[in-house]
């Protein structure tokens, strides 16, 4: 049936379809993630959460959207117009781009690059640029400070995140996300990487870094309301602020999706259709993120940095080593015990090392 | 005894040394030192003289002193009759005068120095006497000149004394120069200067003009020293010195040295008749001139000085006439009575403290000893027969008469007459008549002064006898005896004539007594014709009183031009020599400046050039270092392109 159209039209058609799907999926997920988050956090704080707009507050995102759009878009005079204007756009673009690589279902990945995972990492690293533009462009001390903090945080968490992915690549032997998911197939889910010792550790590290990458929950120092108003998007209002918001939620969605694909076997599932499994796993991880937000207090900057550089990074390096061992060792219980032992030992060792850490005695310049 | 003859001059020399160095401590003792030293030399000299007189031998010894190329100079002593007589004269008179001056110079502040100079003079005179060659002779001759200068200018505070000393010294120096040239020509002509060999060497050399010249030049020494005609001006002024000095030096010894010189070189002189005539001419001329001036002299010492000059002229004339013995004999006798006259004048001055005879008069009563000794001496010099003066003067007149030179004989007679006249003019003015200047209180001199006067008076009387006929002309034989060994007498007159020429004797006595009478007429009588004579013979009188204007002539002819010459030389020196020196100085300065300029501009220039060049190049090259990074980048990139271009292109 496809014959009647010239081939290049076909190519464009398929491209357009996937683009349309992602373009629709992104914003919608973002909207309903905001609602989900407010509902869940509310419930955790013994309150109901938004329920007045629509049946169970289902129309609340629309309300927010309308509010955002109608709000006046204020641009501070000293602000750098170009940077200020471009920042929100440039922050959404990578968020959307990343969707191209995520395998929603069997054969449902928009672009099956054989460097898919690397694509994901590369694109996520460009968000720092946008954050810089936002913070520097608005010529505001708080936003600058917030910007600096978020960039520092993202840069320092990007390293363990990238390294935690390496064991997966090591085992599956390919960078393409689809291959990774295929590698985890079979046995009704027991082949997921999470059930391997290094897989579990890698998952935890990846997931934590992912959360930090999105500037969410315990790591949301950049927009810490109590200290620096709203971090790098202080000076934004209206539509631009909405874009920031959307980008943040899309990032959290993609991080959870990737975590799921890498460690929870993506769309691999015994009965239900592949995409349903994918979405269930992703939303479980999103719930955990929101759960984090509901409970954990905010990290101090030095704790944040120490966790990344002094705890996660060494752990991932050891993990890569263990994965290497795992790859070459014969598939027996010994392998499991050995690697589990090494990892728990190193986990305990590093935790011991960091424990002794007492924050550096603060030197008061004037009062003492 | 004669072997120690060379010690004779040494004693006075020792005396001189003691006095000059320890004089200040000796004070009055200085006199005794010099007197003892001269007595010692008498003790040596007199026996030696007696030895020569007795044996008639000549004693000499000499040692080699200096070798000049081929010829050698030797020093030594020579004792021959001539030296003996001089020894006899010098030692005795010297001692007496030193005794006299001990009293005369009592209150003089420089007492010891006076006696030092006198002793030095004695030693010089004695070495001259016993010298056996011209060199030693000339040396002592010079020392004597020095002593005369020192003693004349003894009271150098007085300007006149200092000038007189200088004058004396300079005029005698002129003579000495001639003498020295003579010695040299003699030396060149004959090769040796020894007196004994003089006779033989002159014969060997023959009568060459050089020898004649030598003779004449040697005679110049005599003219200077014995104050002959042209160079006589210093003797009257020499009276500025103390009287004993005048007595010793300007009467007895030093002036006699000139005559002694002619006597010593008689062989040389006699070989040239023309030279002999010159000598005679000079002698008579001096004698006559001096006598003429003495006529009008008013100062007692001046009169005696001029009389000494005229008597010396007498001696020279005698020698010139070829009579060695007459001249020497007159020398001896004259020494005694002239010394006496001077000492007498000295005691007169000592008593009256004035030298102008016009102020004196009638001193006979006040100063009997001095007066009588003075009168004896005057008689002697006037040539009154029994006294020594008569015999010696007679000898000379005889020689003149024999020589056939009538004019000379007549002049000599006139001179004798003039001598007698001015001597007794002096005697009558000072001792007879009345004291003209009442401020003077004459008093007799003490014994130490009058003693030597009487001894000399005795001498004046007795000394003439040896030459008199009573003793058979012993003296002339004595003098000619040994001498004839090598010399032959000129004109055959020789020494042997014993016949007394009564005509000559009569003329001389007449001349003497005539002069005395005329003087008495002039000055003893009341008539006082001197004023009349003065007026009638005004020009002659002026001539005489002004000493024939010799001093003025000399000052005009010699002194002033000499000064002019000096000035001119000074100016010449100032301009030319200094000019040259300055020129040389500025020349060097100029050349050094030039050299400095060259060094500064060219040498330094080059060095600086190097510096400047480096500075310039570095300044330009430095501009590349702009410090801007991009400039460097530009340069590198351009060079890269160029390199590529060249790499690809060729």
């Amino acid at each position, binding site marked *: 049936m496809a014959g009647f159209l010239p081939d290049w039209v076909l190519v464009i058609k398929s491209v357009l379809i996937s683009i349309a799907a992602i373009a629709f999926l992104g914003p919608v997920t973002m909207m309903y993630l905001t609602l989900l988050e407010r509902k869940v956090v509310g419930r955790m704080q013994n309150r109901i959460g938004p329920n007045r707009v629509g049946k169970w507050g289902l129309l609340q995102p629309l309300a927010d959207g309308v509010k955002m759009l109608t709000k006046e878009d204020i641009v501070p005079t000293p602000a750098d117009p170009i940077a200020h204007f471009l920042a929100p756009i440039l922050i959404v673009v990578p968020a959307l781009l990343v969707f191209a690589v995520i395998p929603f279902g069997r054969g449902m990945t928009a672009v099956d*690059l054989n460097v898919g995972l*690397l694509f994901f990492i*590369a694109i996520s690293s*460009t968000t720092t640029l946008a954050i810089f533009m936002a913070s520097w462009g608005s010529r505001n001390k708080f936003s600058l400070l917030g910007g600096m903090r978020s960039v520092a945080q993202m840069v320092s968490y990007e390293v363990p995140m990238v390294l935690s992915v390496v064991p997966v690549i090591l085992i599956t032997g390919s960078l393409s996300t689809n291959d990774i998911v295929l590698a985890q197939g079979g046995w009704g889910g027991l082949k997921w990487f999470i059930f391997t010792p290094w897989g579990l550790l890698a998952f935890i590290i990846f997931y934590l870094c992912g959360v930090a990458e999105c500037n969410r929950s315990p790591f949301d120092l950049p927009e810490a309301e109590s200290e620096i108003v709203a971090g790098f998007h202080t000076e934004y209002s209206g539509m631009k602020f909405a874009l920031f918001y959307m980008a943040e939620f899309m990032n959290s969605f993609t991080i959870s999706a990737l975590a799921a694909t890498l460690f929870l076997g993506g769309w691999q599932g015994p009965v239900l259709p592949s995409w349903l499994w994918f979405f269930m796993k992703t939303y479980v991880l999103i719930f955990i993120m929101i759960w984090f937000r509901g409970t954990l207090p905010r990290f101090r900057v030095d704790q944040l940095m120490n966790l990344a550089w002094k705890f996660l990074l060494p752990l991932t390096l050891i993990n890569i080593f263990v994965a290497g061992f795992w790859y070459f060792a014969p598939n027996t219980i010994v392998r499991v015990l050995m690697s589990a032992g090494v990892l728990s030992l190193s986990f305990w060792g590093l935790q011991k090392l960091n424990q002794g850490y007492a924050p550096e005695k603060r030197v008061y310049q004037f009062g003492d | 005894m004669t072997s120690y003859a060379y010690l004779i001059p040494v004693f006075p020399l020792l005396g001189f040394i003691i006095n000059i160095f320890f004089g200040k401590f000796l004070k009055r003792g200085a006199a005794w030192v010099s007197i003892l030293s001269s007595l010692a030399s008498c003790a040596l000299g007199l026996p030696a003289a007696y030895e020569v007189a007795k044996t008639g031998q000549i004693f000499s010894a000499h040692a080699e002193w200096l070798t000049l190329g081929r010829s050698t100079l030797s020093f030594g002593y020579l004792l021959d009759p001539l030296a003996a007589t001089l020894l006899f004269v010098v030692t005795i008179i010297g001692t007496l005068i030193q005794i006299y001056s001990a009293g005369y110079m009592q209150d003089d502040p420089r007492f010891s120095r006076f006696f030092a100079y006198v002793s030095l003079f004695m030693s010089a005179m004695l070495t001259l006497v016993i010298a056996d060659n011209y060199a030693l002779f000339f040396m002592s001759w010079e020392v004597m000149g020095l002593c005369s200068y020192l003693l004349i200018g003894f009271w150098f505070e007085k300007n006149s004394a200092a000038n007189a000393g200088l004058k004396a010294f300079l005029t005698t120096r002129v003579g000495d120069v001639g003498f020295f040239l003579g010695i040299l020509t003699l030396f060149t002509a004959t090769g040796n200067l020894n007196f004994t060999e003089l006779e033989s060497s002159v014969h060997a050399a023959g009568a060459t003009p050089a020898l004649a010249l030598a003779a004449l030049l040697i005679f110049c020494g005599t003219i200077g020293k014995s104050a002959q005609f042209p160079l006589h001006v210093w003797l009257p002024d020499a009276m500025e010195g103390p009287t004993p000095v005048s007595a010793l030096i300007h009467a007895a010894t030093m002036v006699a040295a000139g005559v002694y010189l002619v006597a010593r070189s008689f062989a040389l002189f006699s070989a040239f008749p023309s030279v002999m005539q010159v000598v005679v001419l000079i002698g008579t001329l001096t004698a006559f001139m001096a006598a003429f001036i003495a006529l009008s002299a008013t100062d007692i010492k001046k009169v005696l000085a001029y009389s000494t000059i005229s008597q010396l002229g007498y001696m020279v004339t005698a020698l010139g006439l070829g009579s060695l013995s007459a001249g020497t004999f007159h020398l001896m006798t004259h020494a005694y009575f002239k010394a006496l006259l001077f000492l007498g004048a000295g005691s007169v001055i000592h008593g009256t403290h004035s030298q102008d005879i016009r102020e004196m008069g009638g001193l006979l009563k006040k100063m009997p000893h001095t007066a009588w000794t003075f009168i004896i001496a005057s008689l002697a010099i006037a040539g009154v027969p029994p006294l020594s003066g008569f015999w010696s003067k007679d000898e000379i007149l005889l020689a003149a008469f024999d020589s056939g030179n009538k004019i000379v004989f007549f002049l000599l007679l006139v001179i004798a007459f003039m001598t007698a006249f001015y001597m007794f003019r002096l005697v009558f003015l000072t001792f007879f008549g009345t004291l003209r200047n009442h401020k003077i209180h004459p008093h007799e001199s003490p014994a130490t002064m009058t003693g030597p006067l009487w001894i000399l008076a005795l001498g004046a009387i007795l000394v003439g006898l040896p030459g008199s006929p009573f003793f058979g002309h012993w003296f002339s034989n004595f003098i000619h005896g040994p001498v004839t060994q090598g010399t032959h007498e000129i004109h055959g007159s020789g020494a042997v004539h014993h016949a007394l020429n009564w005509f000559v004797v009569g003329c001389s006595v007449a001349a003497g007594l005539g002069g005395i009478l005329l003087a008495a007429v002039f000055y003893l009588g009341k008539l006082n014709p001197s004023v009349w004579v003065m007026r009638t013979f005004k020009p002659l009188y002026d001539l005489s009183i002004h000493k024939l204007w010799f001093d003025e002539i000399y000052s005009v002819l010699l002194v002033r031009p000499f000064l002019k010459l000096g000035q001119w030389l000074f100016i010449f020196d100032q301009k030319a020599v200094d000019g040259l020196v300055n020129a040389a100085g500025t020349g060097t300065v100029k050349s050094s400046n030039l050299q400095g300029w060259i060094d500064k501009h060219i040498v330094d220039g080059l060095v600086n050039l190097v510096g400047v060049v480096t500075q310039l190049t570095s300044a330009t090259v430095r501009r590349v270092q702009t410090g801007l990074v991009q400039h460097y980048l530009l340069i590198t990139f*351009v060079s890269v*392109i160029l390199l590529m271009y060249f790499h690809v292109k060729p």
Partner: protein
Amino acid sequence: MTHLYDIVKFGIYALMAFSVLAAILAVTVRNLFHAALCFAAVLIGIAGVFLSLHADFLAMVQILIYVGAVMTLVIFAIMLTERFGDNSSPQNNSLTLAAFGLAIVSLIAFSTISVKTRWPIQENAGALHLSVGELAYALLNTYVLPFEVISVLLITTLIGAVIIAKKDRVS
């Protein structure tokens, strides 16, 4: 399919033009921050060009390292050294004319060279698709020494940079 190729080719040329333009802007824009952003655009453009040359791993690495790390560094540097409000000063100095002339000349020179010389072009030039595996193989086998040396280099620069930029503690 040729249409597709033409479109893609046109896309690539457009990308090149975009990159050159961005490069020009990056070099001439007065405000340094904008220059840095333009430079980021150029980098992404070049990543695109790499993709067109089928070097997609390199493109991803380019983006990851350049845009992610180096740009962050540059912008940090700009922020730390930027003095507020002084970006009005002219950004180019006295050399402008000389540099411009030089640029033109060298451009012409290089272009003529690159066009004139006959490059030994392989026949299957464009078709090769290089998989990451082959790349990894080459990296760790034939070029393992440079790989190790580069790692040493990176460590030393890391330490060096920290020491240089460290504010010297008042001990």
